[in-house]
């Protein structure tokens, strides 16, 4: 009896500890949500939601100030799209290579290298971008070098580990029988990989892309070092000019901002948060579809 109840209490204590640990994450999300919206939404309301979201002038130090974040919303979309353009094909091919083609000795080098890529701090990427990519783009394509293109290439590199790692494990999770069936029907190894395994791992690959997009949208430090940060509404063909992303906008000015300017920056954070929520919703939608 006595020993049993001790076990019971032990278990109860363990349960409580685990429950608390789990709720810490939820609490953090909840608090961020509450504070962000509490401080950001009134500012948006004051500026005028329509004016804030569709305004093309960002002049916080003017009198009266102008807070239009459309250039930043569009800028974030451009660099993210660019990152997909560069990162996704390379990432998926790399994942195919690693999961199905790569001989073991190469894999032993490649895998840690990709893990290392994932662990490099973004400020180091940013520095790499500044001293290598920016001059490269300037000398190859002209312009000042700090541009949408440069940011896209850098972000494309930065999302590679996410895409490769998740796509690779998705492909490894495909039952071997499917592959063997394809080969038994006369498909070559490559055909089986590209036409059978890759489609079977589709949802995992899509998930990797969405997570990569999430990383690209949220990336701050590296982007602001190579993107030029001009708060100017750009057209897609102006990809050799600089742009400012939502994240860069917040980090550039938050250090000095006060009052309304500060509130507008927090409201920028709200917009960013909504972006990320949409991306995560897409991710869970995809997972649900996969499970069904």
């Amino acid at each position: 009896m006595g020993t049993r109840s001790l076990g019971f209490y032990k278990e109860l204590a363990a349960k409580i500890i685990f429950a608390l640990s789990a709720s810490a994450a939820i609490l953090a999300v909840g608090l961020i949500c509450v504070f962000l919206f509490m401080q950001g939404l009134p500012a948006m309301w004051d500026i005028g939601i329509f004016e804030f979201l569709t305004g093309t002038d960002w002049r916080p130090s003017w009198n009266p100030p102008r807070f239009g974040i459309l250039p930043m919303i569009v800028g974030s979309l451009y660099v993210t799209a660019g990152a997909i353009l560069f990162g996704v094909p390379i990432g998926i091919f790399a994942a195919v290579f690693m999961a199905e083609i790569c001989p073991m000795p190469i894999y032993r080098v490649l895998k840690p290298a990709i893990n290392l890529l994932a662990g490099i701090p973004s400020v180091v990427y940013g520095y790499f971008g500044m001293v290598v990519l920016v001059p490269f783009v300037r000398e190859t394509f002209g312009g000042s070098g700090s541009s949408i293109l440069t940011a896209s290439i850098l972000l494309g590199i930065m999302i590679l580990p996410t895409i490769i790692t998740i796509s690779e494990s998705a492909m490894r999770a495909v039952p071997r029988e499917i592959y063997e069936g394809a080969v038994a029907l006369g498909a070559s190894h490559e055909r089986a990989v590209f036409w059978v395994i890759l489609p079977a791992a589709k949802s995992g690959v899509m998930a990797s892309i969405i997570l990569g997009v999430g990383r690209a949208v949220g990336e701050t430090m590296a982007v602001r070092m190579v993107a030029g940060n001009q708060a100017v509404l750009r057209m897609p063909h102006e990809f050799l000019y600089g742009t400012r992303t939502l994240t860069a906008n917040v980090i550039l000015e938050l250090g000095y901002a006060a009052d309304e300017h500060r509130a507008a920056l927090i409201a920028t954070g709200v917009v960013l948060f909504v972006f990320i929520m949409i991306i995560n919703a897409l991710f869970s939608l995809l997972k649900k579809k996969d499970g069904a």
Partner: protein
Amino acid sequence: MKKAILLITLLLALSLAVMACGGDTTPAPATTAPANTPPATTAPATTPPATTPPATTAPAETAPAETEPEPVEPAVTGPISVVTREDGSGTRGAFVEIVDITIEGNDNITMEAEVAPGTSVMLTSVAENPRAIGYASTGVSLADDRVRVLPIDGVEPTTENMLSGAYPIARPFLIGYNTEEGLSELAQDFVDFILSAQGQGVVSDRGYVPVIPTGAPDYAGSGLTGSIVINGSSSLYSLMQRLSEAYREINPGVTIDIHGAGTGHGISAVRDGLADIAMSSRDLRDSELEFMTPLDIAIDGIAVIVNPSNDIAGLTMDEVRDIFLGEVTTWEHAR
């Protein structure tokens, strides 16, 4: 064997894809290029990959024909890459105010200007880009040989020129105290320290120009205790923080409470007796001089910097203003 072939084709496909992306991008600079008047010099820079042999011979043949008999060609041509600091930066505020890059009193640095977050990024951007122009505190600019500091109106931003007021883009860093109430014994001691050899040494260590470059008196320490409240310009905040650290190493019994709420806040705090010392990053106005006594403690010069490969001799204040307003956009035009 098959695997190897596949591997190679995969790699080839990848590199082709990258090349294709690159290929798509080349027409774009052509559409933006018309702004550059002499195409001979910009052409090799923008399209080197495929056409290397004709590109190298082309400028040699066409350049003399286009630029008259002058064989000397400017080292830097094409669009100016204006680099600025972020909105709210003290350096930007002072630069805009002194050079008067405003429209109706509002900061009007061209929106096309690249925004460098921080002095180090500013210096690197200008150091890496031959067509860049930017600005930074004179101290760090002169110490960094990756950038070239331009004389303004023919005056180099040296310590002497800033002290004499000949170099135009400089602002005083000053402190002020309530004239009626005067300084407390402790506050006076801190001010003595700031204007001593040690205090002025801190000033120059931080990259500012000391108001007493040589021959400042030595500070020995007073053994006083108590507290001082300082409020004002955020531009002076970090300098004042360093000064207070250095002062408290000598007088550990003193606490110094520094707030960087802005010049205006600091001045009204001193007027209302809420602070002992105000920090200001501009000259005091007449209305403020009625109740405050100012003391210059340092000079903050702002240097206009370009890439070392840029051979432009110097700029006038008007030229600097036009470039940063975005009205002059090419180096040919700036000369």
